[in-house]
C-alpha cells in the first residue's frame, strides 16, 4: 500500500499541477485539462466507444506480437542450439534488423491493402527481431558445464535442448519479450495512424480527434494506449516472475 502510494506520488502531482495551470489559463488550448480528459474517458467508457477501439487495437497488436514472438523465440532457440540453423538465419537477421520496420508498411499495404492483415504482419515482423536475438543470445550464453552435466547424466540432444538450453535461456527471452511488447504498441499506433479501413483503433481515434480539434478526445485515446501498454507490461512481469522464480531477486526482470 505504502509502495503503491509512493509510486503514484509523482504522476498524481504532475496531474494536479497540470489541472491548476490549465484552470488558470496558462496552457494552450490543445492541452486539455485532466478533469476534461477524465470526463471524456468516462463518457467513452460508458458508451462503449473506447472499448471497441481498444479491442480492435489490442486484436491487431496482440495477434502480431503472438506470431512474431513465438516464431522469434522458437527460431532463436533453435539457432542457438543447432549450428546449421544459425548459419541460415543469423546473417539474414543481422542484415535486415537495422531496417526500420515501419518503412515496409507501404509494401505491406500494396500487398494486403489497408487491412488488419497488413498491420498484424508489420507487428509480427517487428516483434520477431528482439525475440529472436534474445533467445539466440540466451542459448549461446548457457554455461557449458550445464550441458556437460546433462550429457554426463545421459541426456539425449533433444533433452539437453528442452531441459537445459530452453530453461537456461528464459531470463533473456523475457527481456526480449518486454522489448517486443513495447514495439507492438508503437507499431500498432503508427500503422493505425497511417490508415485504417473501417475507422477503428486507438491510433485512428487519436488522428481523427486531432483533425477535428477534439483535443480532449485525442488525449483520452493517448491515455488509453498508455494504460493498456502499462497493464500489458505488468501482466508480462507477473508471468515472468512465476517462470523465473528460481532466479535470485536482484536478477529478476
Amino acid at each position, binding site marked *: 500500500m505504502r509502495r503503491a502510494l509512493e509510486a503514484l506520488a509523482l504522476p498524481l502531482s504532475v496531474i494536479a499541477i497540470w489541472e491548476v495551470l490549465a484552470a488558470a489559463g496558462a496552457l494552450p488550448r490543445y492541452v486539455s485539462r485532466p478533469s476534461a480528459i477524465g470526463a471524456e474517458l468516462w463518457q467513452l467508457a460508458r458508451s462503449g466507444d473506447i472499448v471497441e477501439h481498444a479491442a480492435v487495437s489490442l486484436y491487431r497488436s496482440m495477434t502480431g506480437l503472438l506470431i512474431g514472438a513465438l516464431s522469434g523465440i522458437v527460431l532463436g532457440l533453435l539457432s542457438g542450439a543447432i549450428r546449421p540453423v544459425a548459419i541460415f538465419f543469423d546473417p539474414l537477421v543481422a542484415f535486415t534488423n537495422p531496417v526500420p520496420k515501419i518503412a515496409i508498411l507501404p509494401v505491406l499495404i500494396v500487398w494486403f491493402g489497408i487491412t488488419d492483415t497488413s498491420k498484424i504482419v508489420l507487428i509480427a515482423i517487428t516483434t520477431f527481431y528482439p525475440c529472436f536475438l534474445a533467445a539466440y543470445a540466451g542459448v549461446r550464453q548457457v554455461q557449458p558445464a550445464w550441458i556437460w552435466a546433462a550429457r*554426463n*547424466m545421459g541426456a539425449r540432444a533433444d533433452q539437453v535442448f528442452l531441459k537445459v538450453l530452453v530453461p537456461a535461456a528464459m531470463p533473456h527471452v523475457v527481456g526480449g519479450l518486454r522489448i517486443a511488447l513495447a514495439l507492438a504498441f508503437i507499431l500498432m499506433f503508427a500503422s493505425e495512424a497511417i490508415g485504417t479501413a473501417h475507422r477503428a483503433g486507438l491510433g485512428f481515434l487519436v488522428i481523427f480527434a486531432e483533425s477535428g480539434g477534439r483535443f480532449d478526445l485525442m488525449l483520452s485515446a493517448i491515455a488509453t494506449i498508455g494504460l493498456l501498454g502499462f497493464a500489458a507490461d505488468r501482466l508480462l512481469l507477473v508471468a515472468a516472475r512465476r517462470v523465473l522464480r528460481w532466479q535470485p531477486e536482484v536478477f529478476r526482470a
Partner: protein
Amino acid sequence: MIVEVERVSKEFVRGEQRVRAVDDVSLSVGQGEFVTMVGPSGCGKSTLLHLLGGFLEASSGTMRVAGNVVSRPGPDRGMMFQDLALFPWRTVSGNVGWALEVQGRPARERDEIAERYLQLVGLRSFKNAYPHELSGGMKQRVALARLLAFDPAVLLMDEPFGSLDAQTRELMQEELQRIWSETRKTVLFVTHDIDEAVYLGDRVIVFTARPGRIKADIQVDLPRPRPIEVKKSTAFFDHRNHVWDLLRDEVLRARAEESA
C-alpha cells in the same frame, strides 16, 4: 579392475602451438577404491578426468570403465564438476532427480530416490529450495546427492571442494568419507590439497608438471574409518610429508617453466 587407463596422451592445439597436457599415463583402479590425484596446477590431472568422463577425446591410448571403451559421456561415470553445474532453475529435489527424469523413470520413483539421497547428505528439509538459496557447502552436498542418485559405477570428482572455506571443506571431507564408506563407490578425486588427498585416498597419485605424467603412486595405509583427528597422527604426517616432497620439485619446475 574397473578403471583401466592405458598409455593415454592428450595434446591440445593452441594456434601454432601444440601443448601436451597428459603424457603416456597408465593407471588401474580397483572396484571400490578411492584414488586421489595431486599435481601442480596445469599438470593435466583435470584433463585426465575429463578424458575419462568422455568430454574430451584422447590423442592416443585407450580407456576402459567396467570393460567398456570410453568414447563419450555417459551415466556410468558420474562427474562432479569444479563449479558443480547445478541447474539453477530446478529445485534441490529437481536437480537430484534430473538424471532419472531423463531416463524416463516415473515421478514417484524419482522423488523417492531423491529423498533417499538428500537424506544421506542431510538436506532433506531443503528439497524444495532453489540452488541460489543454499550455502556453498550445501550446494556441494546437493551435487553429491545428484551424482549418487543415478548410481554411476565410478565417481569422477574434479576439485569439488576447491571453492569452500577451510572449515566447511573439512566437514565435507569427513562427510564424503562417511558417504563413500556407505556406498563403496569407486572414486577418482582430483585436488590440489595434499591433506585432502591423503585423508580421503586409499592411493595418492602424484603428477609431474606439464606434460602430466604419473610420478608416484602411493598407498595410504591409514585405517578406516578415518575420523578427522587422523590428521593429527604421525602416520598421517609421514604420508603427507612424503607427498609434499614429491610434489615440491614439480611445483618448482612448473613455476620455472612459467617464468621462462
